[in-house]
């Protein structure tokens, strides 16, 4: 496809990506948009660290600082980490299970466009009267109190991206259950596929509470309900429960796919099958299950009472057991293997001690009375950056280098990759290790400044220096990507030389239909088995014949655009209306907002009606075309 894309003009490439339903191109869309938001969130992180470098700094004001921390958290979780994981899920999972596409290609496209436009929606708040400022958790009493439309941008924008995430989650569950190639039993699925399955199930169960919470918040702020208004009988603790019933599984939604990436990386670059595969699968499921039973450990200081605190403390500690099982299985995977220190493997090796450190502070916080001290201090900031950066972001960087050839059929520079690795990992520990101590010394989190003479100065300066190193590391990474794209040096099948699972059995670039013939899977590490037994040729499970593929469609983009426009309508419709809370009713009225709302919803409804009434039967890829591709590939191989 890359060769045909080259012949096309720039406009038609854009059109191709806007209409694509191909999971490989959607993966690239997720990667570009998620990467953009990652850099944006990184810039916000740098602003935070500059502000906190010295005491009594006035680089950012208190109000602006709160906007920056809110957007840093929201952007990194919803708009960077999750989409980047979706990028790798999309790029690998259909190939790993031997499918030609996901179960619902149209929904896949809808998911990515909802995410992108929702993300843009939230970030436009910077230019339209101020960003949300109540923290990424947006606790109700403060978010109700927050003036202007910032919180509304947060609530409506997350509703749009959240719908996209939910759709993608449903899509992956269906794909993995229904579209596995013959022989690809559940207990032969690569860990990346397993973790995607469990994370997707978590999405399906965890996002609805968030959706409900956000709707209640929107109703309260804009339509005069009082779910969270205490003076009229509401209760703010309900928001905290709804948020964390979503929020805690969200952590596992992020970390499980990262575990998947690491499992693949460890196995590949140790030239050894994963140790204790069934224990790994079982612990993944168990972590997902426990993930729903511990949300109140974010609320130990809310005053739920000793019984609730004790129960949630025990449940929280219990999660350490399956996580520990994983760590030991990874170590035993490496043990006795033949380790090649590629960039993805380096991230994997850095991940183990880092994540263990983040994990044990997690158990320490499970001890509720001690958590009364840790809670909402810098200790917590250190802890969750150890698990989310040390776990998820290391996983994303490993995945970026590891799957880059699969996605773009070129290789990122190993040399620059290793420079990024050293700077990023060293910078990370310098930034966050010291923050544990800051918390224990009594520094609360989310403070825009601190006074001199409390003993916080040196530690904060060290932390900022580390953050600068991480920023330089990301700059090197971006340079690496630009150089690689500019050089465009193509690689062929199994570029790492040690590929084990099905995705590496495909020629690069991967044909748009993935598999000329659906392969027969004869065991775990399907490609490895065939490399040992059959010279790396997958056995086909079907005869060479015509097969069906879905058509491209612009409708997902139009549907998302309609919701994007309607979002503005909903948001400005409430301005100046007497029923809204005072923060919103004090603003000038916008009569056009109603029309925006109607037009937006009409666009979405129109697109949905079109989709329903107009039959789109897709098309057939002919046997001749596939044969031509196969011959061409063989010539290329010679």
């Amino acid at each position, binding site marked *: 496809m890359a060769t045909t894309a080259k012949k096309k003009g720039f406009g038609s490439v854009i059109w191709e990506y806007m209409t694509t339903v191909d999971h490989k191109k959607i993966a690239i869309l997720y990667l570009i948009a998620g990467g953009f938001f990652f850099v944006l969130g990184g810039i916000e992180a740098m602003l935070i660290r500059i502000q906190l470098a010295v005491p009594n700094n006035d680089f950012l004001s208190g109000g602006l600082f709160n906007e920056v921390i809110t957007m840093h958290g929201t952007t990194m979780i919803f708009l960077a980490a999750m989409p980047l994981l979706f990028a790798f899920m999309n790029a690998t999972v259909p190939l790993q299970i031997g499918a030609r596409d996901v179960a619902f290609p149209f929904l896949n496209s809808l998911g990515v466009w909802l995410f992108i436009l929702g993300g843009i929606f939230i970030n436009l708040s910077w230019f339209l009267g101020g960003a949300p400022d109540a923290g990424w958790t947006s*606790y109700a009493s403060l978010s109700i109190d927050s003036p202007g439309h910032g919180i509304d941008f947060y609530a409506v924008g997350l509703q749009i991206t959240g719908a996209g995430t939910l759709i993608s989650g449903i899509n992956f569950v269906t794909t993995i259950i229904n579209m596995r190639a013959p022989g690809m039993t559940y207990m032969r699925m690569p860990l990346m596929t397993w973790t995607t399955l469990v994370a997707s199930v978590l999405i399906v169960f965890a996002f609805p509470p968030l959706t409900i919470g956000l709707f209640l918040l929107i109703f309260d702020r804009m339509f005069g309900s009082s779910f969270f208004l205490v003076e009229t009988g509401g209760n703010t603790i309900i928001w905290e429960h709804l948020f964390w019933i979503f929020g805690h599984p969200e952590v596992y939604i992020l970390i499980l796919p990262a575990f998947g990436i690491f499992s693949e990386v460890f196995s590949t670059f140790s030239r050894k099958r994963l140790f204790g595969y069934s224990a790994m699968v079982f612990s993944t499921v168990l972590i997902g299950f426990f993930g729903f039973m511990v949300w109140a450990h974010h609320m130990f200081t809310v005053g739920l009472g000793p019984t609730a605190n004790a129960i949630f403390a*025990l449940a929280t500690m219990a999660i350490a057991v399956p996580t520990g*099982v994983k*760590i030991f299985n990874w170590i*035993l995977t490496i043990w*006795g293997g033949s380790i090649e220190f590629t960039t993805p493997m380096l991230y994997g090796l850095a991940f183990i001690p880092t994540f263990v450190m983040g994990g044990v502070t997690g158990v320490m916080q499970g001890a509720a009375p001690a958590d009364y001290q840790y809670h909402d201090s810098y200790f917590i900031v250190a802890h969750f950056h150890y698990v989310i950066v040390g776990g998820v972001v290391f996983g994303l960087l490993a995945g970026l280098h590891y799957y880059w050839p699969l996605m773009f059929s070129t290789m990122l520079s190993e040399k620059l990759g290793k420079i990024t690795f050293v700077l990023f990992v060293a910078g990370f520990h310098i930034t966050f290790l010291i923050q544990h101590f800051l918390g224990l010394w009594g520094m609360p989190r989310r403070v825009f400044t601190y006074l001199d003479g409390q003993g916080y100065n040196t530690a904060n300066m060290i932390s900022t220096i580390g953050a600068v190193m991480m920023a330089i590391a990301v700059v090197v990474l971006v340079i690496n990507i630009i150089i690689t794209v500019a050089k465009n040096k193509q690689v062929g099948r199994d570029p790492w030389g040690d590929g084990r699972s099905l995705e590496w059995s495909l020629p690069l670039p991967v044909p748009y239909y993935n598999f000329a013939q659906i392969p027969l899977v004869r065991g775990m590490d399907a490609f490895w088995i065939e490399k040992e037994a059959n010279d790396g040729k997958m056995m086909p499970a079907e005869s060479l014949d015509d097969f069906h593929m879905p058509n491209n469609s612009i409708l997902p983009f139009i549907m998302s655009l309609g919701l994007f426009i309607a979002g503005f309508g909903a948001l400005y419709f409430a301005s100046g209306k007497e029923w809204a809370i005072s923060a919103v009713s004090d603003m000038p009225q916008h009569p056009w907002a109603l029309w925006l709302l109607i037009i937006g919803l009409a666009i979405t409804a129109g697109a949905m009606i079109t989709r329903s009434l107009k039959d789109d039967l897709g098309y057939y890829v002919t046997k001749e075309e596939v044969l031509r591709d196969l011959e061409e590939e063989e010539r290329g191989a010679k």
Partner: protein
Amino acid sequence: MKNRWMSAKWIGLIVFLAAFASGCGKNHLSTLRPAGEVGQEQFYLMVFSIAIMLLVVVSVIILFSFAVLKSRRSKLGEDYKPKDVAGNHVYEVIWTSIPILLIIILAVPTVYLVFKQGDVRGMENEDGGINTEETIVNVTANQYWWEFEYPNEEVVTSQELVVPTDRRVYFNLKGGDVKHSFWVPAAGGKLDTNVDGINSFYLVFDDDSAEESNRLFYGKCAELCGPSHALMDFKVKALPEEEYDQWLADMKAVEEPAQASTDDAAEGQEIFNNSCIGCHAVTPQGAGAVGPNLANFGDRDLIAGFLEHNEENLVDWIKDPESFKPGNKMTDQYDLSDEEIDKVASYLMELKVEEGSGDVESLREKPEEDSEEGGN
């Protein structure tokens, strides 16, 4: 030679101890230098959990380092073919059961302390009313200041909490506008001040620790509550019981506002009574006011919870509170000239409570009368 080595050793030891001491933070605001029973218990639990976790981290890192070092391809050669191992049941049972064991060991003190520290039955007497024998403080957190009410003694103050040492101090916490969190790191963990209802817990301040910290501990707001969240600090003055009683009695003795002594201050008082008294009380009564109670303002250690206590800072603060605490509720509530502000400031600096003016005996009697009245 030997002497020099000895002295070097001592210097080394001193440097090490200094580094260690600084590693524990300041004694008036660090969780690692607990100042009372609650903080001490939490500190022990922290140390205990850290010890267990260090065991885990060290053994994982040793195992991991061996795995990496012995399995390098550069050492084993390109042709080395690792043996595929599917798994090992014995190992898996070991690394499942040891963590379970460690967690059970950690769970025991955790659950014990959760229930011990959550026990605030001492606040109530047998009839379910307020126990007048105990020290009880009602805390109301507002954007960005703290009100402290002593219900048994009917005294209200703000920003500077005064507590007795060596006995339990019970707190009733609530948020006045949005959610805050009440945290005195040296004395113990935090508890949220919800807007939905009252949370109760207790802290203890040891007299020895109080003395080491010049009787002042730092308190902080630990829940994001708006632009000036970072500046929502307060001070805790921990006094021996007699001094504490005397302070309460002195506060209680103030029945009408202190009279200004100079002309400037007298004019300031008049201006204050016209422009400020709507929000700020100058007698230690009236819980739930719009602004902080200023009855003993002249005695306090900080202005607005975080500025050094002098008249210059006070004038600057009144002139433009927004530049110090963005988002505060005082900005634009009054229209005073610079000259008027100077006078108000000199009046406020005079708001001191005379030491020893109160009668401790009556302080102890009063609450009983109250409860009788309440009974009638």
